[in-house]
């Protein structure tokens, strides 16, 4: 089996020994990027479980591969962030993580699904079972005098995706929050199997609409490295500019919603208007407000002439000015600070244990920014210094977004003035090596987007796994709300602004 990975180190290991290795890895400052299982019985008659570890020191990604028939040792007790992946693998592959503390079904609801169905196994025949109650789901219970539960969702007020939040309260303070997600599992991983790389891009770019470009970049990093495509310098520049534009409009919207959730509609509306202008710019550039279909295998779909670059530069300058006003406004307004500071604090230790990424990690003092840790496209040459804040609270996350808007603006300005000449796309006729695989990384506005792709012997996708930053960060809210009152939950939730769609593929 061939491995085409970038800057990476591969070890095949026995499941029982891996638990020890995980401990050593953790002690050396590495953290879990993701666990990817695959049904490789047609290749070597085993399932494989790949653990990807990364570190902030620039050591690249380390891969540990465990082969198994039916079970593997759980590392959840060592790396709590492994918990969700292992539950997912138990659901979708039916491989038992031995010693896992919580084996309740994650995605295939026992209320609807027979527990013997494992859709990601290659021999799953696609028959949809009769929708009936096969079992129940047991929530954690909090007992005591005067303690009650408030259940929110899965259907929410407003236009929000489904998620069930179960608060155990003693009056206003939250004693425990339990989240149940995965209400609208789309089966994207299974859907992509057997598709060619171009076809899959169309699906991938719509996993989570507001991060279409950055998620596509992560996918293309993996796909292009399997296909041995080296894209032109100009295409790289355009990809980075689009990625940073997407980041900016996401952050502008996020900051606007923070204002909205503290009931301060005046500054929020100002930023919503700015978001609208950014989306119109997107439409001018790409023909789509969310920049869908901007990227293609081997390059990008449209060029940026000097007029378009000028338009972009004017816009980001405008954004910088308006955001500067907002920043001043936040810092000078005690009533705003009072709402944001010390609310929803995620401790550094918690962030580490849960392997957080993106804004949530950087606001809790963790130096995690894919653009600097595992540089892709031209980020390696930009010498980015990740912005780190230490509060871990809503204020830190808001301030961080504002600071990153400045950073993105600077990147765009630098690049648009030094745009190299060249084609925007190269042809991609090459066939991938049979069962070659690769991983791709990118930094979305929420954090690290991680792709694992393996090709089959016909040049199609054999196994595709996407790990969204939201999947990694969602559990952290359960810790962030502790010590807060329930009335502040919407604000804490909004300060992380996680995706339901990306989380639930």
């Amino acid at each position, binding site marked *: 089996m061939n491995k085409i990975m970038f800057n990476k180190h591969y070890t095949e290991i026995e499941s029982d020994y891996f638990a020890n290795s995980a401990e050593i890895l953790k002690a050396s400052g590495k953290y879990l990027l993701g666990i990817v299982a695959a049904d490789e019985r047609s290749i070597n008659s085993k399932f494989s479980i790949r653990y990807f570890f990364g570190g902030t020191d620039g050591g690249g990604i380390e891969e540990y591969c465990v082969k198994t028939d039916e079970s593997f040792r759980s590392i959840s007790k060592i790396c709590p962030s492994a918990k969700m992946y292992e539950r997912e693998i138990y659901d979708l592959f039916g491989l038992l993580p031995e010693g896992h503390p919580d084996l309740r079904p994650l995605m295939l609801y026992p209320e609807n699904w027979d527990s013997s169905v494992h859709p990601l196994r290659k021999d799953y025949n696609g028959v949809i079972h009769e929708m009936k109650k096969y079992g129940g789901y047991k929530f954690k219970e909090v007992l005591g005098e005067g303690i009650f539960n408030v259940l929110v969702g899965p259907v929410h007020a407003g236009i929000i995706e489904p998620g069930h939040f179960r608060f155990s309260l003693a009056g206003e303070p939250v004693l425990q929050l339990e989240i149940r997600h995965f209400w609208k599992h789309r089966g994207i991983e299974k859907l992509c199997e057997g598709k060619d790389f171009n076809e899959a891009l169309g699906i991938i770019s719509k996993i989570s609409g507001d991060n279409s470009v950055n998620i596509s970049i992560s996918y293309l990093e993996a796909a292009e490295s399997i296909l041995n495509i080296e894209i032109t310098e100009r295409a790289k520049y355009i990809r980075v500019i689009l990625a940073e534009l997407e980041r900016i409009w996401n952050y502008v919207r996020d900051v606007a919603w923070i204002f909205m959730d503290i*009931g301060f*509609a*005046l500054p929020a509306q100002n930023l919503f208007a700015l978001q609208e202008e950014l989306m119109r710019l997107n439409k001018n550039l790409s023909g789509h407000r969310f920049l869908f279909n901007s990227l293609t295998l081997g390059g990008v779909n449209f060029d940026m002439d000097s007029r378009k670059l000028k338009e972009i530069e004017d816009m980001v300058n405008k954004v910088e000015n308006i955001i500067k006003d907002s920043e001043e406004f936040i810092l000078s307004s005690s009533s705003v600070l009072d709402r944001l500071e010390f609310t929803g604090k995620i401790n550094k230790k918690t962030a580490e244990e849960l392997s957080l990424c993106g804004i949530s990690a950087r606001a809790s003092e963790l130096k995690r920014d894919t653009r600097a840790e595992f540089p892709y496209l031209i980020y390696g040459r930009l010498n980015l210094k990740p912005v780190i804040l230490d509060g871990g609270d809503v204020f830190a996350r808001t301030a961080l977004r504002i600071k990153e808007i400045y950073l993105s603006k600077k990147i765009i300005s630098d690049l648009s003035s030094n745009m190299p000449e060249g084609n925007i796309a190269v042809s991609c006729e090459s066939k991938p090596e049979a069962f070659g695989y690769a991983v791709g990384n990118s930094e979305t506005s929420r954090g690290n987007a991680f792709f694992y792709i393996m090709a089959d012997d016909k040049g199609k996708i054999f196994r595709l796994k996407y790990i969204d930053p939201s999947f990694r960060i969602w559990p952290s809210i359960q810790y962030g709300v502790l010590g807060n009152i329930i009335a502040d939950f919407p604000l804490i939730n909004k300060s992380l602004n996680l995706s339901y769609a990306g989380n639930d593929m």
Partner: protein
Amino acid sequence: MNFNGQHLIIGAVQFFIIVLLAPFFAGFIHKLKQRARGQKGINIFQFYINFNKLLKKEIVLSKDATFISNVAPYIVFVTYLIILLMLPAFYRYSLLGMSSDVILIAYSLALATFFMTLYAMDQGSAFGGLGAAREWFLTVLSEPSLIFIFISLAIYTKQGRITDIFYVIQKGAENAFLTGSGSSAVSVAIPFLLFISLFIVSISENARIPIDNPETHLELTMFHEANILEASGKHLGLFEYGSYLKITVFLTVMSLILFPYMAVNLYQIPLAFMVYFLKMIILCALIAGVEIVNPKMRVFRVPNILSVSFILSLIAMILSIRRF
């Protein structure tokens, strides 16, 4: 007070006009806020349309609901109607002016809140209970201020009925103005203190920013709305209309404390009505202004601002007693 047919008729007309205007005032505040934010804003008569729509919709009740749920919306609505029946606005007498005792008004407000929270709990959802607890948290904290405001008014004017109280204030102001003798510092200070104190209480009682956010869809942050989250159809319509009536009650009292001008005969009514309407518009703008420039505060900071209101009303009461 001699009670004749003219007072009855004008009192009734006054009542109907205010009841009909209530959704307009609420809509006006909303529109003003939206325009200030650069939004196009709702139709200024939107709340009439909403009420009409809600009346036609079916009522959905929780399976745990008892008869309380069926009567509470009516009790809440009628209670506010009765308060408005007692209140003068632009005419010196009101229909129930004879029994418009200030303590009765204060506790009628509490009665409406009581039934609204009963409704919330009767639906059997855990969040209704939390909403009811939050509502009482506010009401209990603002009740002392409200009582002190009304009692200081009573002591200040040596009257028990709200119609007489405002008439005495009006007379006092007229005398001071006509004779040119001016008013003492104390008699100016008391209405101002009471006005500010009542303004804070109104913001808290009427679920306004910075204490509550009437526009939010985030159920977990709600105070007032948390109570009527389960209400639907006509019940919701009555609760909504009740909340318009409630803010009208508070605004009307505020308008009379600071600048009482009520007609005493038929000919003064047009001018008095215009003055009343203008005062209400200004007060609506004031409420909207406060809502625009403030974010919602943390729940447990609310006692701070209500204690300011309480201290102000306490000072006003001490001043009224000294003057007495």
